[in-house]
């Protein structure tokens, strides 16, 4: 994979559910080390699009390329093996389980007969969270349950899990929903951390201010199509907001 090659590329992707055409010919790329924001109204197809990228849904037609290879993703695990990882706020973690179990869920370190190497998983989880994610508080324990964490910390655990397993591209679906200002800053820092690690982020967030503060590029979706694309230096925060309002009211984008 050369540096200029996109981590992910979609060519003319369609997705229908019965007679409802949710995606109607999406073309997009995500490059290494950038944060791409998908913006658009409810029903624009953002969620469906990321479900196609992450192997939850298969496209009705069109091509998905990951790291220069055409792929037909069969499942979430398949996408994950290809380096595409999703962090859903609501569905990222299991609340009653310990942090270490959550970090390794679905990809346990196992020895003979499928028994887990529990000690090793605990130590790895501890190292990962303390050194790479900056969980430094004394009260913090890998044996603690996820339910004891704040919303931002939960996001951190989910992102840590993705990074540990060497995801190339991490999808953040509404990562700041329902979080306090301080927590939101923390999560946005996590997103910047992913970029600094040379990985890519695809971000969906209703709050355009959050999106604007971290993203390098914006892909505007409208009713299943890419309505417009901008890099951050092509559009100011206020222009982006105006554009979203205009799109909402008229269903059209006037660029320039």
């Amino acid at each position, binding site marked *: 994979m050369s540096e200029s090659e996109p981590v992910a590329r979609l060519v003319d992707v369609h997705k229908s559910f019965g007679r409802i055409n949710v995606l109607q010919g999406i073309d997009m790329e995500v490059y290494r080390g950038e944060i791409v924001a998908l913006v658009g109204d409810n029903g624009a197809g953002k969620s469906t699009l990321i479900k196609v990228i992450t192997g939850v849904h298969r496209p009705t037609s069109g091509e998905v390329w990951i790291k220069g290879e055409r792929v037909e993703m069969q499942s979430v695990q398949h996408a*994950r093996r290809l380096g595409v990882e999703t962090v859903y706020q609501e569905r990222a973690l*299991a609340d009653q389980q310990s942090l270490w*179990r959550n970090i390794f*869920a679905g990809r346990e370190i196992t020895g003979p007969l499928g028994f*887990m190497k529990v000690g090793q998983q605990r130590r790895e989880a501890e190292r990962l969270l303390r050194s790479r994610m900056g969980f430094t508080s004394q009260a913090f324990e890998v044996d603690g349950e996820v339910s004891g964490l704040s919303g931002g910390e939960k996001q951190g655990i989910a992102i840590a899990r993705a990074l540990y397993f060497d995801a190339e591209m991490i999808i953040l679906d509404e990562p700041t929903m329902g979080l306090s200002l301080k927590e939101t800053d923390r999560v946005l820092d996590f997103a910047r951390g992913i970029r600094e690690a040379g990985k890519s982020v695809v971000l969906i967030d209703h709050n355009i201010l959050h999106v604007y503060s971290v993203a390098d590029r914006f892909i505007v979706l409208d009713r299943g199509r890419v309505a417009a694309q901008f890099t951050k230096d092509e559009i100011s925060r206020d222009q982006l907001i105006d554009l979203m309002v205009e799109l909402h009211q008229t269903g059209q984008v006037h660029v320039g």
Partner: protein
Amino acid sequence: MPARRERLRLFVKRNRIELSITCIFVVLYAIFIIGAPQVYTNFAIYRSFMSTLPFMGVMALAATFVITLGEIDLSFPSVMGMSAWGFGATFVASGSYPLAVLVALGIGGACGLLNGVMVAIVGVPSIVATIGTMFFWRGFVNVLAEGQGIPLASLTEVWMHPIFVGRIVGGIPMQFVWFLVIAVIMMMVYRRHVFGSQVLFVGDNKNSAHMMGIKVARVKILCFTLLGVMAGLGAVLLVSEVTYFWPTTGDGYPLPALGAVFIGGTPVFGGRGSMYGTFIGVLIIGSLEAGVVALGIQGFYTQVIYGLLITIAVTIYAVIMRRN
């Protein structure tokens, strides 16, 4: 020494449920031993427990997985009846002990699989699905057996018989060895195996589990099937011990088996639990009736004390969990 103190604190934190149930067990036995020393210092009573506990015990162990999923199975006693009939009828027809065992386990597995498919694929709530299969299989046993028992005294002449219900050193019944070995394996699977972890995640939050790439339906089906197979094994052990098949085989087991799971600290909500707790729960439930009688309390009180014990245990767990 702070490091040692820290380790102890972690041990307590990780094993709160296990420690609580062990305390309940110790207190209960202290009461029995003090109240009826002549009975409880004699090994004979333990031999008797060891011969009767395992039939219900192996099912309670497997039921722990199902409860941890946040599901329930009420049909396993009827499945046990079906397996017992299959075991007896096959032995009468073929004279083959091993074949009869395979038939019993096969029937159990198939009935469990059916429950699993109904719950995980069709989407019937487990309590409804298994009430249905509970009546169906019990009715079916009665139809097949025409309400009649099957005498199976010649089982004892077969070489395989002692493997299941023979007596080893000190008169310890083999069925207890089976129960013990299965309990140890299941405890390891529950806490340390990938499968145990998957059961915990599915029970905790099946959407998360799915997003993590766990095959939710497969995990559920496997748990129900395992319980079916254990109902089959329970039938093999029970019928081998009593050498007689009754169409009501298994009827008395649903409440004690599920009671053992709940006393053991596995809540109905799913996502957590303790296999060790179920093991101790089985020992408690299985020895309660004899203990109550030995203490000189009328047998009628047994259920009162069952109920009291379950209530006390679940209250303790609720308090522990709320503090957490």
